[in-house]
């Protein structure tokens, strides 16, 4: 009995196609039962997320026959009649197991190294297990996949660092302030990215949020959404003495904060550290303020550059992760077939 994978993901299929093949969770147990009743597979797990729909199966059939059967089953099951090219990939051992380990470790994810997929994979496996659609082969493969994911998370840098602008802002705040839970945040301009950054700070425990915007109504709406307080745009400097982190993203064509304006405000703040995040283009804050004592200014390019560097660092870890996975796949398959590593791959269309 061998393990095969058939499915489509963000790498091979656009969202319009993925949503056609997606399974609602409530439908999965019945589908698995149907697949097993049709004698195509002995064990099966269906993973259906926004980025992938995959069937992991253990089957007695020859892989090529199993692929044809499962492919047909999938098409019929989702009532898909349009032509398909290379959107659906089919993997047999050892590539199927290797793929499972990569998915669990976030190596096949859209956001490299993300951990959400591991949770989704566990849910998919638990669902199949609960309805007794897994057996010795898939149980062992999935348990090993979870172990490999843990190993990779702790022993490599694949999940290190933030790769979004908002979370980089939070990381910087954590490098400046001892605790975030007594920090006050000022959002100047109700932009989308500044809202995300403010939410990220709130999720890490920031004490309060003040929102100001030229259109006061927008400020009020965002403040209500964030659980903060809205103030009029002309009043934000008056609040500055109590602020620790300011996120600015107005559409102003000139600097709204410069050294001359900030110097007296810093005295009022007793020179406590101040993190300024300028997400506006053109910039809201004069770059020279970064030279001031205890002022740390980051613009959108700085944050994006850090996020890109983190992503690059993660990408550099891929080879290490793949070596770990290769060893673990060999270890798992050697228990079933000592010559597993010599099996020729039977794959198609896995971009």
């Amino acid at each position, binding site marked *: 009995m061998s393990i095969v994978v058939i499915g489509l993901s963000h790498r091979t299929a656009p969202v319009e196609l993925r949503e056609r093949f997606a399974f609602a969770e409530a439908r999965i147990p019945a589908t698995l039962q149907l697949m097993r009743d049709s004698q195509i597979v002995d064990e099966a797990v269906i993973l259906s997320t926004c980025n992938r729909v995959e069937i992991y199966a253990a089957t007695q059939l020859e892989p090529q026959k199993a692929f044809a059967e499962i492919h047909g089953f999938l098409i019929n099951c989702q009532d898909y009649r349009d032509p398909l090219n290379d959107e659906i990939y089919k993997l047999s051992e050892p590539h199927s197991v290797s793929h499972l380990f990569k998915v669990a470790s976030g190596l096949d994810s859209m956001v490299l190294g993300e951990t959400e997929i591991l949770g989704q994979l566990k849910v998919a496996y638990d669902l199949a297990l609960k309805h007794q659609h897994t057996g010795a082969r898939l149980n062992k493969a999935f348990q090993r996949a979870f172990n490999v994911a843990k190993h990779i998370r702790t022993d490599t840098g694949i999940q290190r660092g933030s790769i979004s602008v908002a979370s980089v802002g939070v990381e*910087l705040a954590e*490098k400046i302030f*001892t605790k975030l839970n007594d920090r006050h945040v000022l959002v100047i301009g109700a932009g989308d990215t500044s809202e995300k950054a403010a939410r990220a700070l709130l999720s890490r425990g920031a004490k309060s949020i003040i929102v100001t915007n030229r259109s006061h109504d927008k400020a009020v709406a965002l403040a209500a959404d964030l659980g903060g307080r809205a103030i009029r745009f002309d009043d934000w400097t008056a609040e500055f003495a109590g602020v620790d982190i300011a996120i600015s993203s107005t559409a102003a064509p000139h600097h709204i904060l410069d050294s001359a304006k900030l110097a007296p405000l810093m005295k009022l703040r007793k020179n406590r550290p101040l993190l300024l995040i300028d997400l506006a283009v053109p910039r809201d804050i004069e770059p020279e303020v970064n030279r001031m004592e205890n002022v*740390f200014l980051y613009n959108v390019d700085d944050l994006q550059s*850090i996020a890109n560097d983190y992503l690059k660092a993660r990408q550099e870890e891929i080879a290490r992760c793949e070596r770990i996975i290769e060893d673990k796949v060999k270890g798992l398959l050697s228990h079933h077939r000592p010559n597993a590593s010599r099996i020729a791959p039977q794959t198609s269309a896995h971009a």
Partner: protein
Amino acid sequence: MSWFTDRHFFLLAVIFYGFSTVYSILIWRKGFRQDNRVNYLLLFAGFGCHITAMFLRGFSLQSCPVNNIFEATMFFSWAIVTAYLIIGISSRLRFLGAFVSPVVFFVGVFALMPPLDPPHGPKPEFSGAGVSLHAALILQAYGAFGLSAVAALMYLTQVHNLKFHKLRAVVSLLPPIQRLENVTARLLTNGFMLLTLGLVIGAAVLQRPDYNYVSDPKIIWSVLVWAVYLALVVSFWKFSQRGRRFAWSSVAVFAFVLLTFWGTNLLSKLHHP
């Protein structure tokens, strides 16, 4: 093994601190992303030799080994390493070793200079618990000032990273700058209290009727150092003088202490009869 003296053990300790310094440079260059266990173990090995040297010297003298500059320096660098090894039990703070090892290495090299460890005379002019307490408190104070300077250096490194090497700031294992500044100020304050207590006890026990205390270089120097540290402590807590200027002041004053402590000791007839 009798040929292997306390100085040899201390030399071995300094060699370990030297290895740790080299490793620290690598860690520094990598932006503190490297594993610090090796550094911790090197400093721990050095500490083992260091404490053996102090025990051997202490047993041979039957007193706390702080009777000449070699011993005083050995004692004070031991205070720094001990503090680090305790703090470094927490893996998150183990990176402090990258800053501690250069300090204890260079101080150790200095202490090993032969003229700083003359043979002990048959009877020291001042002895007893009061003198030992005076010396031990003052050396612990300088140990605290040393650690404060180390924390200030970390602060300056991280502020520089945050302002100019922005990725390095987020990937480094250094604590938040606010905590580093706080640690610097608290160590400085604790050191200042120990120094004050040590000087008061010294003034009480080191009494010689015919001696002109006002003209003793060591006493003038000690009062000056005490006043400068007082100014630093007051400027931070009372006048909110924070940031790089405060950190640089902590480093500069400690560098001044390191460079002049031994010289003034040699010039003082009270401390170096």
